[in-house]
């Protein structure tokens, strides 16, 4: 987990980038606060004039019109406040997503593959979204809960310093309030979150296994169990909540008591029972105004306490995002731009010169390896699992960099040009066959797409679909077997005119039909003069190769 300070620093960094929006939100909030104060001044003035001075309603028209104007201003300011806040959050979210995107690209496919796609997607979507409340609500409200009470305090002091002193007395308590609220809210949030996720876990566990429960006729018992466990968690949670809610009750209590004390003080002052301090000078105007302002003094803090969970959520989500951004990526896995070593730029070979790769304390995966592969060759890499086949492929793809030595593909840095890659799992997106193939070759024609699909033996399947290449490939690869999915991926390599094709175990785990189609397809690609390098154990594939290399014990030898 990232340090809380680091998370806060990262959040402030995001805030700095969108400073103007936050400042705008705070400014709008301040205008709303000032409008509220003016509204109360006018209200108290009207009451004083009408009740004490006996001014008629007609003569107060000006004040009433002003009052309505101020109300409109307040509403406008409030509206703009949410608008600016929402825009700010939108931009922050885009910034955060862009940063993550950039990080993914810098990390490269090999290191990225170490985390599950679901986790990464959750960070990119949900955790970034969890920042919303913090930037849209909490952060501006932090500033407002200082600015607005100070403004009100100044006015109350000016009206009656003793009443101001009552409020001020609570002012040193405000940081205390905030700490209390914070502690309470944090605890609350944490506890609530834990309970909810436990309950969800319990529930989902049973839903996931519902078929099994049904097969054994045990669903009723499971429902009972969900009920019991939920009740149990509820009781535990409530114990904590009873304490956690006390902190916000304290804030509520101080606010209520301050209003009560001020009301009673003003009342006695107006009666002339209090002969010291500013009390004798109180009028209905000043008295009423102080009373009307007192709740507004506490309101920003109460709002802040309502938004406190936004902060907790953002800190939690931020910690996970930051951990991703700062995760020390294995050095090898970062594609590196600069390499040392000689520059034998032979455009007709794939060459490795004195390449070594070692992970930590383990034995060398590749040791001082030098290798030349001619353009147009079909090369099979074989050898025991863990022998370094994949590492070698990753080096050639530029997904990894060696510890020592140089790798050149057709005289260029690996990964600096486009090439074909076929992983062990087929890669599908939701959409049509055409969408899937245009993913890597956007400009491909319909005919080329159909041809590519026929080349990998998907022709009959394609013909059975009503809309040809514009039929849906159906969701989650359902309806396509693993073998068909792999062939679809292979079709992409047909479509693009890549000079180099790297394939990791292209036939592993395939049924015999798919295997034949893949072999045929690779054969066609080989005839077309492509450079094919694949890792495999498969006998038929080894036969297809011009050259078979055994990768084991850190070295490579021709079989």
């Amino acid at each position, binding site marked *: 987990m990232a340090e809380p300070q680091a998370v806060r620093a990262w959040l402030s960094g995001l805030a700095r980038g969108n400073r103007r929006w936050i400042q705008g939100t705070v400014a709008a909030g301040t205008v709303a606060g000032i409008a509220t104060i003016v509204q109360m001044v006018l209200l108290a003035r009207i009451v004083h004039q009408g009740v004490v001075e006996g001014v008629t309603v007609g003569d107060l028209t000006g004040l009433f019109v002003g009052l309505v104007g101020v109300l409109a201003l307040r509403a406008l300011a409030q509206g703009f*406040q949410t608008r600016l806040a929402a825009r700010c959050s939108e931009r922050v979210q885009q910034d955060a997503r862009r940063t993550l995107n950039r990080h993914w690209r810098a990390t490269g496919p090999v290191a990225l593959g170490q985390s599950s796609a679901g986790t990464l997607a959750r960070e990119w979507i949900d955790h970034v979204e969890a920042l919303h409340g913090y930037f849209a609500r909490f952060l501006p409200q932090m500033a407002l809960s200082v600015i607005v009470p100070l403004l009100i305090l100044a006015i109350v002091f000016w009206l009656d310093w003793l009443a101001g002193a009552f409020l001020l007395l609570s002012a040193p308590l405000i940081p205390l309030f905030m700490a209390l609220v914070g502690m309470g809210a944090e605890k609350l949030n944490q506890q609530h979150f834990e309970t909810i996720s436990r309950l969800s876990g319990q*529930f989902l566990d049973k839903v996931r296994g519902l078929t099994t429960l049904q097969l054994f006729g045990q669903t009723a018992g499971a*429902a009972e169990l969900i009920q019991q466990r*939920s009740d149990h968690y509820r009781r535990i949670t*409530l114990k904590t909540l009873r304490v956690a809610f006390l902190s*916000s009750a304290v804030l509520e209590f101080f606010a209520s008591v301050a*209003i009560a004390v001020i009301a009673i003080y003003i009342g006695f002052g107006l009666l002339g029972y209090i002969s010291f301090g500013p009390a004798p000078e109180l009028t209905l105007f000043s008295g009423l105004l102080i009373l009307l302002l007192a709740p507004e003094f506490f309101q920003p803090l109460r709002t802040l306490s309502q938004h406190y969970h936004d902060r907790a959520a953002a800190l939690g989500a931020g910690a996970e995002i930051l951990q991703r951004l700062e995760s020390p990526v294995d050095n090898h896995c970062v594609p590196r731009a600069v390499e040392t070593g000689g520059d034998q730029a032979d455009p007709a070979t794939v060459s490795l010169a004195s390449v070594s790769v070692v992970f930590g304390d383990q034995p060398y995966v590749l040791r001082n390896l030098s290798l030349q592969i001619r353009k147009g060759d079909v090369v099979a890499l074989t050898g025991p699992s863990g022998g370094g086949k994949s590492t070698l492929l990753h080096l050639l793809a530029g997904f990894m960099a060696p510890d020592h030595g140089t790798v050149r593909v057709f005289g260029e840095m690996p990964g600096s040009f486009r090439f074909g890659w076929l992983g062990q799992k087929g890669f*599908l997106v*939701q959409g049509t066959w055409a969408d899937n193939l245009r993913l890597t070759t956007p400009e491909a024609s319909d005919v080329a797409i159909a041809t590519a699909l026929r080349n990998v033996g998907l022709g009959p399947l394609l013909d059975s679909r009503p809309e040809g290449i514009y039929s849906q490939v159906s969701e989650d690869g359902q309806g396509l077997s693993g073998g068909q999915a792999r062939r679809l991926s292979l079709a992409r390599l047909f479509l693009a005119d890549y000079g180099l094709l790297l394939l990791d175990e292209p036939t592993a785990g395939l049924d015999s039909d798919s295997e034949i189609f893949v072999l045929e397809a690779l054969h066609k690609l080989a005839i077309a003069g492509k450079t094919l390098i694949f890792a495999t154990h498969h006998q038929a594939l080894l036969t297809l190769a011009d050259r078979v290399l055994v990768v084991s014990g850190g070295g490579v030898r021709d079989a």
Partner: protein
Amino acid sequence: MRELRPWLRLILKRPWRLLLGGMLILATLLSGIALLAVSGWFITETALTGLLLAAGMAASINLYVPGGAIRFFAVSRTVSRYLERVYNHDTVLRLLTDIRVALFRRLAASSRRLRNELTGAQWLSRLTNDVDALDTLYLRLIAPTALAGLVTVLMLVLTAILFDLATAFIVAGLLVAAFVVSSGGVYLRTRELAYRQSDRQESLRTAVIEHLEGFAELTAAGRTGKHGAWLMRQAYQVTSAQTRTDTRTGWHLAGTHFLVNLTAVISLWLGLGLYHADEVSGPVLVLLPIALLGLGEVYAMLPDAFGRLGATEASANRLNRDCAGSADGDPPAQPPSRTGVALHAKNLAVKHPGHAMLLTHFELELKAGERLGILGHSGSGKSSLADTIAGLLAPAQGSLSCLPGVYLTQRTVLFEDTLRANLLLGAPEASDTELWRMLEMVELADRFAAEPDQLDTWLGSDGNRLSGGEARRVALARVLLNRAAMVILDEPFTGLDSETRSRISKRMDVYLEGRTVISLAHGPDALPGTDRVIYLTG
């Protein structure tokens, strides 16, 4: 709104609890309003009396009642707020349980075939979010709306009593407008946006996962930047819809505040007229506008809740759709008409709804006590055939009759519970001795005898505290504990080495004596003992 009905009915099953919770919120709201209103009344009263006293006239004022009232409301606001929060949080957690249990029962009663469509982690996490959206329906939406209505009526009665009926009508008009702006208005303006939001989010999630799964391919093709930018645009559409919802909700909130404040100002305007006509006293003139100002807090709860109502409806809609209890249910598999026959399949075709046919013209007759092995490569429709025989999948064509049986699915499913609880699912009445004997048979007895909790060992989420082979054997033991006459085993030995496999297989032969067994596997060495073997060519 119709989609919410079943859930509202469920929530309203606790009327007294809801009512009491609502009363506590009401007490909080009224205490807050009364604290300020009485204080305003008190200050005006003392100001006027003070002026009389200063002018040397005789005047008296009762300080005890208003002073006491102010102190009372200050305390009651705090206390009722605290109690309300604790009590209503309890309610929310109870509702959460109610909803989950009801949902689970509905899912359990629903057609398995329908549910087969809905699997995967994504659906499960969406289900959680959808349920969470309904949990807070009462506290966020129902209670505040009902209370806003109630408090408004109280205010109107107060206006009619303190001022006059004409004022009450004008105030009523404005407050109804404020109510509409803060509730229905927000709902209508955000409904569409919010309704589509979670669908958009789901397709975004799918797109992101696909992007990541194909990252190597995309990198090789030099397309990560382009595709990443496309994702950013998709994400932007989701956030900007959120922004629009937020902004609209914000404007409605501001409008509500404006209308409530305007009501207070107009009541002051009309009240001043009445005051000068000597129809109301000064203190009462001040009391009412301040009380009306307090309505702002009551209405402020509404726009946010109504801004999310569209999303809540969408959640309810999905739950209704995904968890619909089907009228027909699953027709129980017909037992074979002739005695001595355990299974009879005639011209059977197997397919998943919406997908291509996997098997057609499948004919099979199995005598009671016979052991059949079915072999086929992956994708040959083996597991789907097993699902069909076990009744999880309806035959696409043809007829099927078989004895009721017990089925070990290809996927190992263990629950986040103890070993004992997991095993007892197969045979709820089994004694500890029987459980240990079965564990011995699958060679797990030593493994769990070494655990401090023995049979009560916690297996963790989806049995993640076990290795794949151990989890498989627990699942196998669970099925074997069941004494059903027919046993279907789909890849029973996944994750086991060949020696363990053959040892267990031998013991199983003895144990399953006299029962009909269908075992399915990808190769002959993965099958337990069989009388005959058929091959699926797919």
